[in-house]
């Protein structure tokens, strides 16, 4: 029994046509997703999108109406949570307050009938992994939030599960600690031979940590891609708007072409099909102050309205005509600051064609 869990080799997860409904509401609407062995997969979405329901279905705490969940070759859809062999980290940590740190971490081993001596040494090793060596004797209420999270991590991986599920594990921590833990978790993932499925609503966290991200909206997977592709090539306005800082600018459709301020845009991707309205997706940091004018760069003309100093960058608010505003983010290094335009001045912004993404407004 212990051996089954200990033969550590990360497993692929294959979810097919998963449906979960509460009354008329389809929380998971025919979801299919193939997670690779050893991958760090993030389920990203706004609250109520179904991302946590999907995670809970993987853990076995939510029973879907139909569909299939396979760990490796094994069908898990009707398997009880305790027989799935997954490690799990919860948002609330869910540590056992009446047990010591070491007892918490040893709990999965104790349940598996591991000998007390081995329990002790493996719990210590797991605590050392999360940089809490020597904390075994502490009580849970003596720990800080970050330490509690580390104990929860140690407890979820001490039995060497091949799949670890995490439900917004860092959301209770303050920003600085959260960003630190993101890096640490990523490093930990490289040491562990486990497939990690991670739920968050924080797009930056998702971009930082994931091998791939599944953006979930209204119970469906909106887009599944690597962080960079997701950021640079969103396939819908929802994804574009949800990931990163985004300015949308309406553009005109001229047959197969797209134009802005009367100029034809050079696009990174083909013009979206159909005849509906189109939007140009602009990342403020990808705009250049010198309009370029070469054949690889699109130009957007405007007037500087406001300059906002934000420490690591300066945000320029540009009036692009017809009441549309565009913002441009300029780094506060010397190169960036040398050419900073004054308020009220006319400028031509450059947007490289590889960064020029035009998307259709969704019907829904």
């Amino acid at each position: 029994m212990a051996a089954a869990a200990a033969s550590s080799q990360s497993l692929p997860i294959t979810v097919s046509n998963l449906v979960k409904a509460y009354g008329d509401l389809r929380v998971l609407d025919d979801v299919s997703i193939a997670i690779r062995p050893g991958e760090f997969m993030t389920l990203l979405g706004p609250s109520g999108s179904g991302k946590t329901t999907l995670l809970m279905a993987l853990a076995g705490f939510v029973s879907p109406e139909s569909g299939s969940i396979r760990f490796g070759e094994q069908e898990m859809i009707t398997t009880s949570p305790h027989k799935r062999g997954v490690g799990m980290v919860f948002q609330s940590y869910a540590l056992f307050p009446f047990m010591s740190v070491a007892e918490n971490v040893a709990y999965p081993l104790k349940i598996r009938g591991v000998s007390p001596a081995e329990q002790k040494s493996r719990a210590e090793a797991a605590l050392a992994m999360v940089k809490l060596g020597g904390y075994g004797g502490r009580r849970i209420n003596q720990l800080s939030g970050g330490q509690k999270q580390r104990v929860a991590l140690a407890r979820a991986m001490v039995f060497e599960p091949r799949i670890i599920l995490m439900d917004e594990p860092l959301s209770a921590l303050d920003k600085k600690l959260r960003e630190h833990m993101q890096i640490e978790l990523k490093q930990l993932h490289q040491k562990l031979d486990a497939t990690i499925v991670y739920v968050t609503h924080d797009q930056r966290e998702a971009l930082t940590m994931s091998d791939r991200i599944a953006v979930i909206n209204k119970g469906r997977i909106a887009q599944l891609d690597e962080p960079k592709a997701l950021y640079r090539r969103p396939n819908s306005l929802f994804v574009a708007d949800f990931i990163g800082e985004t300015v949308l600018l309406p553009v005109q459709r001229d047959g197969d072409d797209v134009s802005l301020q009367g100029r034809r845009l050079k696009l990174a991707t083909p013009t979206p099909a159909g005849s509906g309205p189109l939007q140009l997706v602009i990342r403020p940091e990808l705009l250049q102050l010198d309009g370029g004018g070469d054949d690889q760069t699109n130009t957007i003309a405007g007037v500087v309205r406001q300059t906002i100093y934000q420490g690591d960058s300066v945000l320029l608010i540009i009036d692009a005509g017809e009441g549309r505003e565009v913002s441009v983010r300029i780094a506060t290094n010397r190169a960036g600051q040398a050419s900073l335009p004054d308020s009220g001045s006319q400028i031509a912004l450059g947007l490289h064609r590889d960064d020029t993404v035009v998307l259709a407004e969704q019907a829904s």
Partner: protein
Amino acid sequence: MAIQDMPGASPWTQRLLAIYGALVLFFLMLPTVIVIPMSFSDSQYLEFPPTSWSLRWYREYFGSSAWMSATWTSLLVAVLTTVLAAPLGTLAAYGMHCTSDKVRNALQLLVLMPVVVPSILVAVGVFHLYAIVDLNYSITGLVLAHTALAVPFVIITVLSSLNNYDMTQEMAARSMGASRPQAFLSITLPQIRFSVLTGAFLAFITSLDEVVVAKFISGGENATITRRMFNALRDQIDPTIAAISTCLIVVSVLALAAVQIFGARSKGSA
């Protein structure tokens, strides 16, 4: 003290409040406490304050085989009721906690019925039911009836402590390989045990105290102490009643103290 923590209250208001509180406690305790000196009286009748002192009514009580047998019946019934009501009530509370709000509210109403309905109605109902299934005057019948009366108290206390308990702990345990019963026993129960114990204590007292239902369905050699006391009060009033009452008070206070001490210890270690 909470009284001294009141912000903005003048020392005089605080003092008046303290006196008021003490008076309330005094009048609450008075009927109970007055029985104790009466039990040490040498008089033939219940009198307060006693004119002379003796232990004769305790000798009367402990020397009477009828009183003793009724006492053992009561204690046996109370213990069996506790043993049945505590796990049943705990499981019911757990089940109710895990269902939807709608179902829980409906169940809560249903479960509270035995507490809300006048005991005389319960007694009449149980008597007629037991007449059919032939359980009147039996220990089994008494234990079952008392369990029905006691279970709501266990449910209420356990349910309220489950409300303060983070159920994701149980999910965590299950994800780590514990079956649901295992997770409940090893993770949840240790954290709600004080409320289970309090519920068990309330169940014990409910049974020990119960007189109306017992008056209808207990009797003969299986009469409870409260039933005999009630009859004794009607037939001849002598201070034996006071002596027995004093003993019952002592048993209740000891049980309550045990619960509190255990509770303080389990909270201190948590």
